[in-house]
């Protein structure tokens, strides 16, 4: 085409700044999650010593190893040899430097590490005080060769720096499933969430229809009351409900928490659905009435199918809210293995094992997976619900 300019040069300074600002904002917003995500696939030892931003490159890590003991000694060409490999089989690590422990210090180095870990490079052969020699190769294989029998009951210790290439695996996820009952917590969460989403929808849909299209005394006042309840902090209800649950046996039961979530979700459900159902054209309802349809059949056959977008909006809201809830689950469902939900379980891990990032990162992502999928696939409905859910200004 005629225009061969590089796009960025056509840009005004303002347009460039806008793009730059947006990119910076996106990076700031996503990097924390991305870091946790990368970390959840890292080896747990690497995770503990190096930042996740180094995970894509090779990492150096300090370790120690022990030679074989006298019992591993073999005779070869009239010499005594203890040989082996400090890395497990199929290891992708490689030795950079080594020293310290039973090895003599290399005083020729200017600023020597006190552990001696950088005294020698891989492949070096070191002569020990007793005349024996020790060689450590890049691949981790070593040889300790002596003219006389080596006397070492437990083997000798030394330190080394290894290069660890990036490695990612599902190991942390497997571990968290096996050791931390996350699978049970996942199922518990699902058990809490699905009924807690469906029940309020059914109840609220009927109420919303009545508030929109049926005449009864106190309709306006009652609905204004529901609008008021929208903002009542649920903290206000916790203690009395806890007492009520204690005396009725609903405490730490699934039906108990389903009903609790229903109660706390109802004001928004009624409000959202009433806004939508009330906005449907009057003619539809009027003409159905003239045809002799009852309110019940108008609602079931006409209104419900028409209200699907609003029902979906609320369903996503409630689903995310219940799935992500921590407070209600802690108070009404408790922490026994049969009951504990993922948020409560992860909170426990944070409290007791704040440093175990291999557990926390993978557990956190398991808990985020479902809401993220729901959210991304149904974002349109969620946004619609958000826009309808806030009381609009005059």
């Amino acid at each position: 085409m005629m225009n061969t300019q590089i796009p960025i040069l056509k840009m005004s300074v303002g347009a460039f700044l806008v793009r730059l600002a947006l990119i910076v904002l996106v990076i700031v917003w996503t990097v924390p999650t991305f870091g946790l995500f990368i970390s959840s696939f890292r080896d747990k030892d690497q995770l503990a010593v190096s930042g996740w931003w180094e995970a894509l490159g090779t990492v150096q890590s300090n370790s120690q190893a022990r030679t074989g003991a006298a019992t591993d000694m073999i005779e070869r060409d009239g010499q005594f040899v203890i040989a082996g490999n400090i890395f497990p089989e199929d290891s992708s690590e490689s030795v950079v430097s080594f020293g310290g422990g039973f090895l003599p210090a290399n005083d020729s180095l200017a600023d020597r590490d006190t552990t001696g870990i950088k005294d020698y490079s891989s492949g070096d052969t070191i002569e020990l005080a007793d005349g024996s020699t020790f060689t450590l190769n890049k691949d981790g294989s070593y040889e300790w060769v002596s003219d006389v029998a080596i006397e070492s009951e437990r083997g000798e210790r030394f330190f080394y720096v290894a290069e660890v290439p990036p490695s990612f695996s599902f190991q942390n996820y497997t571990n968290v499933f096996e050791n931390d009952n996350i699978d049970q917590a996942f199922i518990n969460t699902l058990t809490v969430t699905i009924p807690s989403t469906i029940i309020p929808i059914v109840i609220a849909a009927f109420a919303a229809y009545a508030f929109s299209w049926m005449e009864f005394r106190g309709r306006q006042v009652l609905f204004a009351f529901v609008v008021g309840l929208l903002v009542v902090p649920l903290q206000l209800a916790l203690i009395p409900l806890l007492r009520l649950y204690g005396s009725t046996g609903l405490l730490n039961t699934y039906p108990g928490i389903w009903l609790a979530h229903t109660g706390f979700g109802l004001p928004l459900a009624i409000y959202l659905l009433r806004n939508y159902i009330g906005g449907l054209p009057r003619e539809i309802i009027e003409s159905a009435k003239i045809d002799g349809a009852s309110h019940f059949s108008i609602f079931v056959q006409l209104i419900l199918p028409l209200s699907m977008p609003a029902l979906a909006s609320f369903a996503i809201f409630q689903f995310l809210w219940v799935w992500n809830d921590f407070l209600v689950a802690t108070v009404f469902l408790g922490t026994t293995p049969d009951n504990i939900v993922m948020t409560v379980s992860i909170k426990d891990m944070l409290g007791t094992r704040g440093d175990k990032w291999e557990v926390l990162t993978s557990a956190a992502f398991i808990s985020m997976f479902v809401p993220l999928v729901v959210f991304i696939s149904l974002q349109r409905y969620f946004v619609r619900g958000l826009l309808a859910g806030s009381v609009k200004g005059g």
Partner: protein
Amino acid sequence: MELDQVIRGALFIIVGVGALVAYFWGSNFILDRTITDRLGPDGDPIESREKTRESIRPWLFVGPALLILFVYLVFPAIQTFYLSFGDKQGNVNITVPVYPEVVNDFNVNTTTPLNVDRILVIRDAIVEDYPAMADIVAEDFAGLATNGDGIDYLFKVGGVELEQDFVLLRNYEWAFNPDNDQFWESVRNNLLWLLVPVMSTVFGLLIAILADNVRWGTIVKSFIFLPMAISFIGASVIWRFVYYYKGADIPQIGLLNAIIVALGGEPQPWITFQPWNNFLLMIILIWVQTGFAMVLMSAALRGVPEETKEAARIDGANEVRLFFNIIIPQIMSTILVVLTTITITVLKVFDIVQAMTNGQSGTQVMANLMFNEMFRGQDDGHSSVVSIILMLAVVPILVWNIRQFQKQEQGR
């Protein structure tokens, strides 16, 4: 066992939803069958009772909702108010006049607080055991008898008036006591946290405006919006990893400290680093809520008519003036909605504080204080007072909400 649970869950959904449907269908069916039109001998209706039916039917529709709202929100709110005057167990106490004769029998002394039920039991027992004192007892307990809710605190014993300590406000005195550091700290922090609605709104508006100028704006918005799907607990894990401190002089694995070290600074244990730790916790909520603000702002901006903007441009307004003098006033109502909605979230902020610090290191907030008093302190009285204060903070927003709603209804 897990399969068992899945089946149990599925069964309950079927039974629960089935019961709901059965209720709505059944109650309507019964209504139509019981209140029938009167029929004449030839089968034609002579009196329609449709009016009666249609006056009952709405209540069948709204009944379950109203019942649940009452049981789960209205009744508990009222009871919390009552409990806020009570003791740890929530009993509203008064001290009774104690007769020397009954001290031993009932194991009470003049300062033993008793609840109303117990007092009435004691009164009846006194009358039964000491018939001779019946008249005096009846007189002494007269105030109590007429004021059965037990909020009476003036008694006469043998003609001498005894004024009961005003224990009713004990929990409020506890809360507002200048020495109650935890309470004042949480009040201060809740006020500090009001930065969150402001910052979220500013960021949300900024991103909404900027993103409308580029083709890939929707992708940007999706990324900013994504944290809304993440639980506060999940967000806490994410950010705790960012703020993580590994100890001085060793490689940092937390991003924040790594950046600080790279810039030549000293790493800090941020979570306990007062007073900045409060702001670091706030960042988490800003991170979550900006997406919400952005979506509402975006919609509002789209609602500003193009002609208005054009007209202003023709009149020579530059973009900055256009923004502050034309656009901002147009979207003001949305800005207020966003601010109030996030403010309510902020007043109730709990999960983040509980997961990050549990209110330690100067980060206490009301909702967390309330939770700790309830679970660790086992003090329903203290806890209730804190939640009542939380409620009072929300009342202005509640009133504003209802006003807005009524205005909206009139315009319908």
